[in-house]
């Protein structure tokens, strides 16, 4: 288990470095997330 974890960790570190250099974001789907006006929440009367 520790060997598998070691390999996973090394690969993750490499990919993290690669993503930073190449401006890749993990789970990029929400980069342009939308928001809408919601008004005052619990205090709205």
């Amino acid at each position: 288990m520790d060997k598998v974890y070691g390999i996973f960790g090394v690969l993750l570190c490499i990919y993290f470095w690669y993503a930073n250099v190449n401006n890749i974001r993990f789970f990029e789907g929400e980069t342009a997330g939308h928001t809408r006006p919601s008004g005052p929440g619990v205090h709205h009367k």
Partner: protein
Amino acid sequence: MAGSAGTKPAKKVTTFSCSKCGAPVSVRYPGHSMSAVCDRCFSVIDTTNDAFRVIETYFKQMQVHPRIELGSRGELNDKTWEVIGFVVREDIASAFKWEEYLLFNPYYGYRWLTCNNGHWSLVTTVKEKPDFSSNDAKIGDKKYKLFYRGRAKVFFVLGEFYWKVAVGEEVWMADYIRPPEMLSMEEDRAQKVWSISEYIEPKVVQEAFNVDDGSMATPVGVAPNQPSPETQAWKKVGMYWGIFLAVLTALQVLHCSTVLNRVEYEVNVPYMTKQDSTLVADTKKAESWTSPVFEIAKDKANVEISIKGDVDNSWLYVYGELVNDDTNETFSFERTVEYYHGVDDGESWSEGHTTDRITIGNVPGGKYYFNLDIDNGGAKATERKTMYLELKRDIAGYANYLWCLLFISILPICVFFRSRATEVARWSDSDYSPYQSSS
């Protein structure tokens, strides 16, 4: 088979009649054994001379039957051992009992095989005395933690022994653990003896001495010196975890120090406030605004767009497009800023914020302009206001770093808690558990 001469010692069994009951008593290793127990009347007989004097006779309402037959031979650690004695000891404070089997090989001497709650250990006496600090004992580089200290007595004996054994004989005992080893001390008025026991899987003992399934006890709980795969895994995984956290943090620091993080465009955008109290942003009713063309540096990087609105118990909605003037590539976004405050029942409150931002990844360098649709509502009066729009190039992102921290931590956290659960179970019978508060 380790078929050396040491594994098949020649035997000269001596048999004599019990001075108490007349039953035949055999001594397998005369000259080595100093006492033997008559298995009919449980008299302990002095075997050091031919008088075979009865040292003590004890009576048990219930005889304890050894799991390994006396006289059985088995191979442990590549050496053949013969079981010649059987002792049941009892902790005086708790009445907890465990079994000890005396093993003998004429070339290697004596060993003990102990059975504690179904867990087995092979015990070897050591001459080296440990050093102590607090509750730890140290032999060489090995540090053992105090697990048990108390008095124990002999509850039942059978077979022959290298000392004049007596039922009820009491000793002070202490156990220090370092799985799979346990350092034990036995002290009586005459001497103090140190030994190291090594955990043995029950199956190994069963196969070595050919013990049938019914005689083997099912192991209960976690033995003091039972090796824990979870703890072993945690030691390695925990070390890797620390290294990966350090590497990821170093890479993140490097990333933060090398990004451009520069304001490429900023402007105050005018709009007319509305008193409309509805909370529906409508781009058809929104004011449109287009910026002049500006330059974004660096080939491929993210941009962060910030919007700061002059909102006061009102909201401001912006639908925007960042358009490449050369390719018409468009990056659209929507953002709302809203800020409310007031006093209810004498208590002031506030909600929302006047600033919001959005990051868009992988925006090529080049000439760009903004198209904005601005809607708003809730203002106290209709008037001219401005909102602040800013575009920053090449912002350090933390999302990747946080995701990596999560991914890299899931397994170590699981392994840690499993290891801890095993260790808590191990120490649950100890008065010296590091997992208990000192109160």
